């Protein structure tokens, strides 16, 4: 059976943070008519026409400066990265190529796609979550971690 990590479980901040993510997606959709899919917004910059570039860059800059905005109010929450550099590089490559082949990531498929009841996004989300579960199981419980 599944053992729940009650000490780590943070339901209220999870829901509140999630709602904010939803608000961000709503802003981009209702004002700009675009989907807040981060892999698509970033990856699209590699081939975007000059006119299509500013909104993409502005969104990415917004993400990058969010920690600075946060710091004006309070200390940053912990960001713990256990993986070593070789694993980080392999993981980054896989995430980059996989999200582009699969046309989306946790934001585009997982949040926006499911919010618009897209069967394609539902399949993508179920697939990358399953792959994530299997990967962590193999790495942590079969190989004993990195």
């Amino acid at each position, binding site marked *: 059976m599944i053992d729940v990590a009650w000490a780590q479980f943070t339901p209220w901040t999870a829901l509140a943070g999630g709602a904010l993510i939803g608000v961000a997606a709503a802003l981009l959709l209702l004002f700009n008519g675009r989907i807040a899919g981060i892999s698509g917004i970033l990856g699209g910059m590699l081939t975007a026409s000059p006119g299509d570039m500013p909104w993409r860059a502005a969104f990415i800059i917004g993400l990058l400066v969010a920690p600075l905005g946060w710091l004006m109010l309070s200390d940053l929450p912990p960001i713990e990265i256990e993986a070593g550099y070789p694993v980080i590089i392999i993981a980054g490559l896989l995430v980059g*190529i996989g*999200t582009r*082949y699969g046309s989306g990531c946790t934001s585009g498929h997982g949040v926006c796609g499911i919010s618009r009841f897209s069967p394609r996004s539902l399949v993508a989300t179920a697939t990358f979550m399953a792959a994530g579960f299997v990967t962590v199981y193999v790495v942590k419980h079969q190989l004993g971690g990195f």
Partner: protein
Amino acid sequence: MGFTLVSFLAGLVFGLGLLISGMANPEKVLGFLDLAGLWDPSLALVMVGAIAVGVIAFRIAGLRRLTLLGLEFRLPTKTDIDKRLVVGSVVFGAGWGLAGFCPGPALVAMGAGEQKAVVFVVAMLAGMALFELLEKRRVAN
């Protein structure tokens, strides 16, 4: 101008949401993906919160012809569930499970000055560039 400003604000709010929810922390994400260990269900509630707001937003969008800025909606048109979607998602999920980073949190952690996040983002961009290269070759053939 308004278009670019809204994009910036959306990115900023998105990033703050990732920070508050704990999803900018790879250890917390891996705690969700580790079903066989001590499982932290928080990420599921992040999805619930985001989708609850998202459903309303897409419902409103569906009732409108143009956006609040008077622009056309540009929504995805693909509906086929093909090999590319599934294989791409498997590859993405494997990378996500290895480091605990997906694209948004990696960018936020990079903005927080985390060196490993910078390396992850560079590798991710290289992966995206490789995709474009392979696509160009595929289209040319």
